[in-house]
């Protein structure tokens, strides 16, 4: 199997680390993108191993979805920033139980 699977895992873990430690919404977003990329890498690596074009196709769809997600996500960040003048997610703690 491709060694890139392990690379994918490492990148994913890096992304996780980023999501947990970053406090700015934009940077968290970036970490999430990193995780998406890692997942895509895993898909492609598996596609290579299984000779499956379908997996590549799914990877393509993931990229498309990522584009949509980024559009909406950044829109949200901007909107929230308007209200709060901050991008720190910790300020958004109204969901408290």
């Amino acid at each position, binding site marked *: 199997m491709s060694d890139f699977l392990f690379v994918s895992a490492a990148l994913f873990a890096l992304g996780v680390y980023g999501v947990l430690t970053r406090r700015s919404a934009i940077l968290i977003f970036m970490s999430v993108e990193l995780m998406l990329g890692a997942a895509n890498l895993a898909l492609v690596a598996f596609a290579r191993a299984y000779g499956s074009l379908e997996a590549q196709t799914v990877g393509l769809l993931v990229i498309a979805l990522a584009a949509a997600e980024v559009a909406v996500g950044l829109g949200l960040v901007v909107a929230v920033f308007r209200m709060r003048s901050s991008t720190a*997610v910790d300020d958004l*703690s*109204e969901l408290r*139980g």
Partner: protein
Amino acid sequence: MILLPLLGFLVLGLWGRSFKGQSAGVLASLMVLGSFVLTLVLLFGGGASFEVKDWLPGIPFALLLDNLAGYMALIVTGIGFLIHVYAIGYMADDPGKSRFFAYFNFFIAMMLTLVLADAYPVMFIGWEGVGLASFLLIGFWFEDQKNADSARKAFIVNRIGDLGFLLGMALLYSLFGTLQISELREIMEKSLVLPAGLGLAGLLLFIGAIGKSAQLPLMVWLPDAMAGPTPVSALIHAATMVTAGVYLLARSSFLYANLPDVSYWIALIGLLTALYGALSALGQWDIKRIVAYSTISQLGYMFLAAGVGAYWIALFHVMTHAFYKALLFLSSGSVIHALGGEQDVRKMGGLKKYLPQTHIHGLIGALSLAGFPLFAGFWSKDAILASTLNYPFGGYGFYLVGLFTAFLTALYAMRWYVLVFLGDFKGQGHPHEAPPVMAWPNHLLAVGAALAGFLALPEPFWNLIERFLAPSLWHLEVEPLGTATEWGLLLLSSVVAILGLFAGYRLFLGRLPDAYLAFQRAAESAFYVDWLYNTLIVGPLKELAFGFGLADRGLDRGYVRLGGGVGLLGRLLARLQGGYVRVYAFFVVVAATVFVLWGVVR
């Protein structure tokens, strides 16, 4: 028959206040007399029975008037009637007398239920009913805390015995599937093999009898029961109710005759009780308590007789005892009445002069109790002693201890007589003789106490009672003692009785030796049994009740803690829900890790 006194109870209980003067007592007495006559008529008409099927599922409400029941019913109603009449005089000045007679009638009704029952549960109704009547009557003067306490004690101690009765019934039911006495008897007659557990059933029923008849170790309630008005003591705690235990044994003779081991225990307990009662009676100062302990002792004799298998003799003694004990109580009552409520024998003495009639009554009663030759008690007690030798479950040991107890009996009978009637009067006031309405019942009882014994004489004379009761009792093969032996024994016991009486006369009229005084202190408190029970059983049980109460609170608190724990957990979880998205993300990742790990490991 039962309905008549019950009617009296209802009428007197509900509309008691409208009865003026003595009419309440008269009505109550008439009701009992009616029952008595009715019993006689029915008995000579060949008996009667009554049954309501399926009173409880599988258990009929059955009454049966056979010879045994009739015999007991006659004692109950006959002596009951006399005591009712006596009570008219005794309670003349009490404001609650209609209530008193209502209870009295209720008692008679319940006692008749007990006696006539042909099913154990029905008997149990009467059994408990008389217990209730006893409770009500002991606590009749309820404004004194002590009387109320005595009443409660009597009821609760009885209740312990009742538990035995209940469990015994349960066992019999699970063995035979019926609780009707006549059916059980038929089964016993037919079956050759006894089911296992029958002995236990007998023992349990016997515990019931122990409670009701104040045998060791449940005798502690009877002396305290003397807190009630004297006619109550006479009726319930001497003549009738306490003999219910003996009646139960006789009724169940078909059972016990097949259970030698249990019978042995019955005899043993009876014997020990007789001894204990006699010893305790020697130390009492209360005129009624002396008689009460003597009752315990005499009941012990009856159990001894029933234990050795001589059921008819036990019942014979029930009758003679009913006469002379009622007489003793009623003359004690007359004495108390005469002295305006004084019960301490140390403040009596010399009453022979003031109360000539009562003196005669007391003398006859005491002689009969002591077993002075030719009095009623003599014949029946001798029959008991003799029966320990020739009945199947008897033995020499029983005879010897029984004989010794007879000596003690004579001793304390004499002590009672001497302290009350002889010597100098040590009290205050001027005693006055009782009115005729109280004297006449005593006359009749005195006749009975003197002559009732002639109904059943040893060979070669007539024996009416054994013949009369035989059909209702289980037949046991008895080796006859031989006329010579029998009369020899008779002679022996009369010598013992006279010896006891003489010793008593000498001892209690003069100064008492020191050794006796030491003994007296122990006997006065009835050998500390009450104290022992209170410290060892009642006290700890009470403490335990409070302890358990606390434990229950603790359990409650435990639940509250549990609730608190759940709340705490909730608060902890709520703190996690701090609204920080990153914290949520953190837990998402943790959970994801766990799930992946779980999947991988599996």
